[in-house]
């Protein structure tokens, strides 16, 4: 883990996230969100969790971002009222951030990263299929339910 890479990725990610939160036009915000997600995936690579980084790109960039842009397309006429912005949210967000930073700085954490073998896909697969097989099934069920629910929600009502 090198400091230079960390700083570059951090700037990239935070810039993407801030743009996603404050851009006036929805489509630009959605595309900046993709930048932020790619940055977060880069953090996973930096932390040695390659698999999570790849899954992050695959799910967020390939699925969630595409869903968001598709929704923007389908609800395009609502575009004129995307500029609404309330400053109360900024105050709350800054307050929460200060509180979190205070809490983090006053907690004793072990800062030494232990040396590890690279986390292979095989290892993750073994753990998923042994210790976490029930959560895995639950997530599968949840995804199926979400799929059916989303389909029913957007299906044209028959009159």
């Amino acid at each position, binding site marked *: 883990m*090198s400091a230079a890479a960390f700083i570059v990725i951090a700037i990239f990610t935070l810039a993407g996230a801030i743009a996603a939160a404050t851009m006036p036009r929805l*489509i*630009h915000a959605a*595309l900046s969100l*993709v930048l932020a997600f790619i940055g977060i995936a880069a953090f996973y690579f930096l932390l040695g969790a*390659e*698999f999570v980084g*790849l*899954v992050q*790109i*695959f799910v967020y*960039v*390939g*699925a969630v*971002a*595409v869903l968001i*842009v*598709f929704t923007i*397309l389908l609800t395009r006429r609502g575009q004129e009222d995307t500029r609404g912005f309330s400053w109360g949210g900024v105050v709350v967000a800054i307050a929460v951030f200060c509180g979190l930073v205070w809490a983090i700085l006053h907690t004793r954490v072990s800062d030494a990263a232990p040396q590890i073998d*690279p986390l*292979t*896909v*095989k290892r993750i697969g073994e753990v998923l299929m042994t210790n976490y097989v029930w959560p895995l099934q639950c997530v599968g069920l949840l995804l199926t339910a979400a799929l059916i629910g989303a389909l029913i929600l957007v299906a044209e009502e028959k009159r």
Partner: protein
Amino acid sequence: MPGEFVDQIFVAAKRWLLSLLPHAPDWVVQIASALLNIILLLGVFATLFALISVLERKILGRIQNRYGPNRVGPFGLLQPVADGIKMLIKEDVVPIRADKVVHFLAPIMMLLPAILALGVIPYGRNMTAFSIDGGILFFFAVGSAAELAVFMAGWGSNNKFSMLGAMRAIAQMVSYELPLLIVVLPVVMIVGSLSPDAIVAAQDGYKWGIVPRWFVLTPWGAAAFILFFVAGLVESNRTPFDVPEGESEIVAGHMTEYSGFKYATFFMAEYFGMFAVSGLAVTLFLGGWHAPIAWLEVVPSYLWFFAKLAVLLFVFIWIRGTLPRTRIDQVMSFAWKFMLPMAFTCVIAAAVWHYQAHGWAGWLSSLGIVAVVYLGLSRLLDTRRKFATRTYRFAE
């Protein structure tokens, strides 16, 4: 041994180039190695792109009973140079109501994932540019960014044909990504690894000394390979699935408002995507860089890879020359009603094959499973029965 030397000549050359920096720190060597890989990859595939763009027109010409381009250079081989110059000196038109930034970024976003995806494919023995544990996942993860690029092109142009084309493209790419991923699953299951190198290594050796252990030679592998190829045709927007840019319906789809070099970039990205999908098909099913016959292994491994790639690319062009374009609703229902169930069948057939110890019994029963589901689906989806017998009335 001279054969081995020729086989490893590129690896040795790279090692020699890196040894020119003896006292450099570790990270400089790493970056230099990565740069070398990227330069070689881009050089090879840019040349292949130039070659295939003229060969495609030649072959299409042959299929349509005419000469292809034959004016520039010997046999028209310098045509790509002329095309490149033409594209470069053309005016770059940007529509006045376009979203300038998005419009500009779209071609780059399209080309980048295609190049990245090429990096994980093993081109020869010890010749993978970017060898990671989850290579197959990496391939599909970066590939999914192409959908966003298509959307950006469609939205940024602010043109109804562009938007329609982009929506069609995204709809069909999302639908076919599912079967494309699921047919990769049996290979990953059998090999037990997501790394392309391990998948190629698992297809090493010959049964009874003659038949190579390529996955395409098993019933589930053959079915999965055909499904993969069809889904690959859709993912690279090739005929007969090129509805997103159907010229007779919506001008050029998401590329309508692009001209000059940006259009060329789109064109290039499409071909790079085609190379990537074909390369992955070779890696997954056609034994990667392994030779088909044992005594032909003296031929360097990378030549075998590119020979297989060339065959697949020829089939791409052949299909373009012979099949008409499908309708968008046919494309979509084919994905969900036929491709997806068949892909799941491949997974089951592969599991049966695996648990019968890769023997004759497994071979026959997996063939049976694939055949039964295929016949059942084709009976179910046969739409011809829905029409009444057509009767003709002539003037009496």
